[in-house]
C-alpha cells in the first residue's frame, strides 16, 4: 500500500443469506487518490455489491477494507465517521422528499460536521451554482426532473467534502436526454481530481473519463487496465465476449 492509496480492499467476499453462490469471491483492489476507477461487467456480476461494501452499506462476509489507513471492517471502527468522507450516489437518487433542496444539502453538514447554517448554505450555494441549479434551492425533490435530482444528489454528497465519491449506475434511471447533464457534472469532478469509483453501463463515458477500468464477472475481478488497453486489447475471453455483446 503506497501513501497515495485511499482504499485498499483485500480478499473481499460477500454471500447473501439464501443465495447458493457468493456475490463476491475474494476481490482485491486499490483505489488511489485522484483515480477515476470505472467498474463494468454483466448484470449480477457483483459490481454494486463491491461498491456498496466500500462504505459498508453491504456488510462483507470476509476480507478487509482499509480506508485512509483505517480498517473499516474492524467492528471497533466507527463506520459513521468514515462514511462522512465517502460520498455515495445511487441509481434512484434517494433525495429526501420531505425536505427542500437546500435542506437536503445542508442537513448532514449541519448535524454531523456541526457547521453553522450560514456556512452550510454557503457551500451548498456554491455547489448548486456549479451544477447549474442555483434557482432550485427552495424547490422540493419531486418538483425536479430526473437529471436535476441526480445532480442534486451529487451535490448532497459533495457538501460533506468527501475524499472519494462512489457512484452506482448514476444514469441508469434517467431518460436518455437527461444522461448528458449528469455525465457533465461527473466529468468536471474527474477533471478536478476527485477520487471516484463508478459502476456504469455507459462504456463510451468510461472510455473517455476513466483512469482505470475494472471488469468484473461472477463476483471476481477478471481484468483491469487503462480504458484504452482494456477496451481495445481485451485479454480474457469473458471480457471479449462481454464487449462483443454490448457493442
Amino acid at each position, binding site marked *: 500500500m503506497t501513501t497515495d492509496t485511499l482504499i485498499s480492499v483485500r480478499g473481499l467476499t460477500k454471500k447473501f443469506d439464501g443465495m447458493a453462490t457468493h456475490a463476491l469471491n475474494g476481490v482485491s483492489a486499490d483505489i488511489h487518490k485522484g483515480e477515476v476507477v470505472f467498474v463494468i461487467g454483466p448484470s449480477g456480476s457483483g459490481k454494486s455489491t463491491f461498491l456498496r461494501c466500500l462504505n459498508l452499506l453491504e456488510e462483507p462476509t470476509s476480507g478487509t477494507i482499509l480506508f485512509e489507513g483505517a480498517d473499516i471492517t474492524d467492528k471497533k471502527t466507527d463506520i459513521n465517521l468514515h462514511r462522512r468522507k465517502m460520498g455515495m450516489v445511487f441509481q434512484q437518487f434517494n433525495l429526501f422528499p420531505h425536505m427542500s433542496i437546500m435542506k437536503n444539502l445542508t442537513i448532514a453538514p449541519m448535524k454531523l460536521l456541526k457547521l453553522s447554517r450560514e456556512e452550510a448554505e454557503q457551500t451548498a450555494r456554491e455547489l448548486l451554482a456549479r451544477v447549474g441549479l442555483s434557482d432550485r434551492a427552495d424547490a422540493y425533490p419531486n418538483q425536479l426532473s430526473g437529471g436535476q435530482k441526480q445532480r442534486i444528489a451529487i451535490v448532497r*454528497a459533495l457538501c460533506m467534502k468527501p475524499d472519494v465519491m462512489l457512484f452506482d449506475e448514476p444514469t441508469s434511471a434517467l431518460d436518455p436526454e437527461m444522461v448528458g447533464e449528469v455525465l457533465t457534472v461527473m466529468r468536471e469532478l474527474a477533471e478536478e481530481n476527485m477520487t471516484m469509483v463508478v459502476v456504469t453501463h455507459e462504456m463510451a463515458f468510461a472510455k473517455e473519463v476513466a483512469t482505470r477500468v475494472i471488469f468484473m464477472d461472477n463476483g471476481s475481478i477478471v481484468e483491469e487496465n487503462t480504458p484504452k488497453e482494456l477496451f481495445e486489447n481485451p485479454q480474457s475471453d469473458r471480457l471479449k465476449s462481454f464487449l462483443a455483446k454490448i457493442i
Partner: protein
Amino acid sequence: MADWIENFQNRFYLNFIKDDRWQYITRGLWTTIQITVFAVLLGIAIGFLVAVIRSTHDKTGKMVIPNFICRVYLTVIRGTPVVVQLLIIYFGIFASVNIGKMIVAVIAFGINSGAYVAEIVRSGIMSIDKGQFEAGRSLGFNYVQTMVHIIMPQAFKNVLPALGNELIVLLKETSVSGYIAMEDLTKGGDIIRSRTYDAMMPLLAVALIYLVIVMLLEFAVGKLERRLRNSDH
C-alpha cells in the same frame, strides 16, 4: 301536535334543566375529552417506541428481547377487551395504590391505544423506501439519527390520517370509563336516566354529542388526507 311539543318541553326540562342536570352532560363531556386527549398522547408515545423497536428488529435483527416484549404486549392488548384491561388495571394493579381515577383511565386507554398506534406507525416506517435509509447512512448518520431526521418525519406524515382514525376509535372506547365509576359523557347521561326514569332523551343526547365530535374529527382527517395527497412534498 301541541301536545307533543308540550310533552317534549316537559321532558327536556326534567332531563336537562331541573336541578341543573345538564351539568352531568357537560362535566361528563369534559372528562371524556380529557381522558381521550391524554390517552392518545400516551398511546402515541408508547406506539412510537414500540414501532421503532419492532422495525429496528425487522431491519437489523437486533433488540431481540425488547422486540419479544413488544410482541407480547401487542398480542395481549389487541387480544383482550379494553373494558377488561381497564378493570384489571383499576381493581388489580392499582387497587392498593391511592391514585386518581383519571390517571388510571389515561394509563389504561393509553396502553390500549399504544398497541394500535404501534402497528400503524410500524407500517408507516416499513412503507419508506430503503433507499432513504441507505442515503442517510451513506452520509454518515448513525441508525438513530437516520430514524429521527429522515425516516420518522416521512413515516409520521404517511400515517397521520390513520392516527386520526385511532383518535376517533379511542374517543368512543372511553365510554366504558363508567366501569370504574368515572363520570364521563356516557355515565353522565346514564345518571340522568337513573334520576328521571327517562332513558331516551338523555342517552340520545349523549349519542348525538359523540356523533357530532366524531363527524368533526372525520372531517378534519379527510381534509388532512387530501392535503397530504395533494402536497408536493
